[in-house]
């Protein structure tokens, strides 16, 4: 399909709620992006809540070839990037009679007031 014509390809993405990530839905044909946008919700999200919609012209997307996808592989030797590499701290903190501040603990801090 060329860049001209009624049947242009658009990819449709949407967010279910304000806080949810953008999710891929499906593709549709439309003559331009205004009409693509106007048709997107009813084609793919007739029965679910939607908070936002993006339509992207497919020809604007740079995809990977099969060969390029090989560049996505990596070795499983990067513990130093994750908490996995620091697990031994738990035992050490215990020695100081302190709890380890792990992911669960730290991510729970955001909403707390002092009086909790």
């Amino acid at each position, binding site marked *: 399909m060329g860049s001209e014509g*009624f049947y242009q390809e658009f990819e449709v993405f949407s967010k279910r709620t304000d806080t949810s990530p953008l999710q891929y839905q499906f593709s*549709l*044909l*439309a*003559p*331009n992006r*205004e*009409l693509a946008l*106007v*048709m997107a*919700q*009813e*084609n793919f999200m*007739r029965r679910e809540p939607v908070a936002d919609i993006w339509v992207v012209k497919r020809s604007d997307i740079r995809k990977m070839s099969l060969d390029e996808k090989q560049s996505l592989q990596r070795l499983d030797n990067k513990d130093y990037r994750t908490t996995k590499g620091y697990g031994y701290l738990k035992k050490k903190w215990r020695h100081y009679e302190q709890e380890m501040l792990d992911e669960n603990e730290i991510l729970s801090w955001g909403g707390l007031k002092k009086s909790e």
Partner: protein
Amino acid sequence: MSKPERKLIDEINPALTSLLYQLADDDFILAYRGSEWLGLAPHIEEDVAFSSISQDTMGHAAMFYQLLQDFGEGDVDHLAHGRKSSERKNAVLLEMVNGPGHYLSTAQYDWAFAVIRNYFYIQSKKIRMDSLKNSSYQPLAEVAVKVNMELYYHLLHWKTWFVQLMEAGGEARSRMEAAVKKTLADFGGVLSLGPLAKEMGEQGLIEEEEILKQRWFLMMKPIFESVNLTVSEADFAMKNGNGRKGEHTADLDAALSTLSEVYSADPAASW
């Protein structure tokens, strides 16, 4: 806008029922026309989108019929399926066929007419709902708030088609202009509140007809200008009759016999 003190209406009266019949019948018959389009739109993706709008619109009709049912006017299915043409209060524009041919075999429906009729009507409906949010009949005000929610999409959808086809020039432009002319010739009926318009205003059910009409103009003017289209008030007419008075065309009779075919086979049966 300063609001006059709102005295609530809670009794059935002719102005109120007349208004409810107009609102219900307008939506019902236009949704019916939309349902005939199903499967026949210019584009598959559009077919799906258009059908949602027709469903929404029929859902709105059902809500207005429900308000009538609550007044003891009969059940909603009778109101939608069992009333004669002369009892219907919809604007004639909304009953007109989609184009030549039958919906099952030879349909040659006019997309330009679909776009213009729906766009112009939805804009007028939006203005009515905005006004009805302050209606002195509280249950109607509540329905108007709900209905209004879905009209943003309807408007965006039809406006997009309107602008794009108007700007396309050539054959599209001339088809669109012909459809504008055809729509305006009966658009007076859409903007009319019927013989009891004055009473509706006095009771605070809805604002005056003239105010609503001017508001429609005000909303549409920049769009018309952007596509280089001239529309004047003198163009509004009721060429094919005043539906608010129960005057209708043969198109409505044919539609009623189709839409009530199964219902009428046995109105007492459960379907």
